[in-house]
């Protein structure tokens, strides 16, 4: 049975091992890299992305795609900053943001399912809408000086002297755990996999496909909004040009973590590691500290490429190894 776990989660394990290798390589090469705080910063700096990637993972598993998330984050930041400046209650604002994100997700999911609009296009329209809405609120950035927000933003949960995490990290971890449990241990989660595997079959098997597909976008919208809130803790401001291209980061994280864009395969924990891997690549680049802008791009891409190819090659060979083992037994 133990072997079963290993072989079922093989790609996840490969991902984690490669991540650890990257971390080790960084530690060996750069002074100050090997420290608990550098590791924890990966979570602190990427908490919002982890949250968004969890929502994205469900969408991708269901066979869809949601490229509106980046704009949702920007919009949430913008609108909360605006409302807070006008003296709204911060908790009410947060609640409202989650509601808006979910509703937006619902609308997109609705037209995707019932009107058969391609997910890419429906969410692209969503992306433009949210982005446009930001500039309707204001074209310049708005500061958040609400005490509740600042307190949450600046609160450090000390794990040891000079080692801490932020509240956002806790939120992100809760989302990951909840997401992982939902994916594996709930009817809804399994139905998402089924729909992604074969929507027609899922329908014939009597699964409520409409509800599942729409829920997935609601979930993604919710996570994006939550990610937006966490991001506004992170920057304590709202800005309409924030996070352009973030959806690609979320999608890439998910894919690095083993999700198939064709649907049906993927894991929430994998996506978290996808985020961490992108984070650590970024960290390595920063520690390298002498790369010009263009070399930065090339280096990020090369590391990413190296990683994906390694992952791919190992997985492909594993298939061969497994077969051989089967043949022998």
């Amino acid at each position, binding site marked *: 049975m133990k072997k079963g776990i290993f072989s079922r989660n093989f790609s996840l394990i490969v991902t984690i091992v490669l991540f650890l290798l990257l971390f080790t390589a960084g530690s060996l090469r750069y002074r100050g890299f090997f420290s608990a705080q550098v590791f924890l910063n990966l979570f602190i700096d990427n908490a919002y992305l982890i949250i968004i990637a969890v929502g994205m993972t469900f969408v991708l598993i269901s066979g869809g795609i949601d490229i509106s998330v980046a704009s949702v984050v920007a919009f949430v930041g913008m609108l909360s900053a605006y409302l807070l400046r006008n003296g709204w209650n911060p908790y009410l604002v947060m609640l409202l943001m989650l509601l808006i994100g979910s509703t937006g997700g619902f609308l997109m999911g609705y*037209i995707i399912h*019932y*009107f*058969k*609009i*391609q997910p*890419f*296009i*429906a969410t*692209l*329209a*969503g*992306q*433009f*809408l949210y*982005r*446009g*809405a930001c*500039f*309707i609120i204001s*074209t310049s950035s708005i500061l958040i000086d609400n005490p509740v927000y600042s307190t949450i933003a600046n609160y450090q949960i000390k794990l040891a002297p000079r080692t801490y995490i932020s509240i956002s990290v806790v939120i992100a971890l809760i989302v990951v755990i909840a997401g992982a449990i939902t994916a594996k241990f709930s009817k809804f989660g399994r139905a998402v996999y089924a729909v992604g595997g074969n929507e027609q079959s899922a329908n014939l098997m009597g699964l409520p496909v409409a509800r599942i597909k729409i829920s997935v976008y609601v979930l993604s919208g919710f996570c994006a909004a939550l990610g937006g809130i966490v991001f506004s803790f992170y920057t304590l401001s709202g800005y309409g040009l924030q996070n352009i291209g973030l959806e*690609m980061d979320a*999608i*890439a994280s998910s*894919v*690095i973590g083993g999700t*198939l*864009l*064709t649907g049906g395969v993927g894991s929430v924990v994998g996506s978290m590691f996808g985020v961490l891997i992108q984070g650590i690549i970024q960290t390595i680049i920063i520690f390298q500290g002498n790369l*010009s*802008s*263009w*070399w*930065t*791009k*090339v*280096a*990020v*891409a*090369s590391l*990413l*490429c190296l990683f*994906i*190819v390694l992952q*791919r*090659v190992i997985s*492909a060979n594993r298939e061969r190894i497994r077969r051989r083992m089967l043949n022998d037994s």
Partner: protein
Amino acid sequence: MKKITTNQIFWPLAAFIVLLVYNAFFAKNFFKISILDGHLYGNLIDILKNFAPLALLSIGMTLVIATGGVDISVGSVVAISGAIACSIIDGRLGIFDHSFVAALILALLSGIACGLWNGFLVAKVKIQPMVATLILMTAGRGIAQLITKGKIVTINSAPMMKEYYFLGAGYFLGLPFAFFIVVAVFTIVMILVKRTAFGLFLQSLGTNPKSSRLSGIKVDRIKLVVYTISGLMASIAGILISSNIKGADCNNAGLFIELDAILSVAIGGNSLNGGRFMIPASIVGALFVQCLTTTVYALGVPPEAISLLKAIVILVLCLFQSDSFRQKVFKGTGRWRKGADAA
């Protein structure tokens, strides 16, 4: 009637026409075409000129999407090819300085090389297309900047500037030369698709790669070819874009143009999941996207509202394209259609 509305190209074309009609009423001078320096001059002519790069990209993108993939690196390839061409024209690369022909050939080769790289990752290493091309998307701008050493190359005073400028902004027989490039490329690709089995194989492998392989289609080879074509298209687009501004701007040339290209393909009514495709429809899609941009400028839409406007236009258009939407919203016609079928 039904035949027409179910034709794939009907809706993008209709949308394009509606946009033109709208402009006829609300945009001052939109349809005015005059003759200037022996060529036609007007908004419509600008649309023909400016839509050329997007049209080329959407041709490549249509083919890639037909295989069930996507190529998000085209924007970076645009930057690379522009950087190479302009560096040579400007004589700062150290080889083939100021040679017009070498500039073109090397730029096109760079596109082919990029396409081959993408194709290799997708077809041979079997990395998912979006992520495979993400690599070049990220690296590409860096490479372009390496070529130009991070500078914006301006070729205003280069010896072959005139010839180079002609490609993207010159006029031939009164019309933009770039438009003729699109026509030529379109014709060649259509011949490839319709007069050889390439189109059939593409649709087949986009629909069911397993069956296609078992039917003897060289799935990997075709994918490789398709990404290469896409890279080539991007490099031509890169030449046109850099030529039009007499310079290579590695940071911004072709930025986010992959979204517009995918959008054009989708507006053309092609499925983004692969399978059946129609290149002319994608071209009309590109025409629509460009026309929308020009309209926005001509109407003086406030910049803050452009995103919103675009979103709404896309949504409305796609909803009309959707059979289920038409059936649900215009129930009356839906029933009428059913009656017609039964009869």
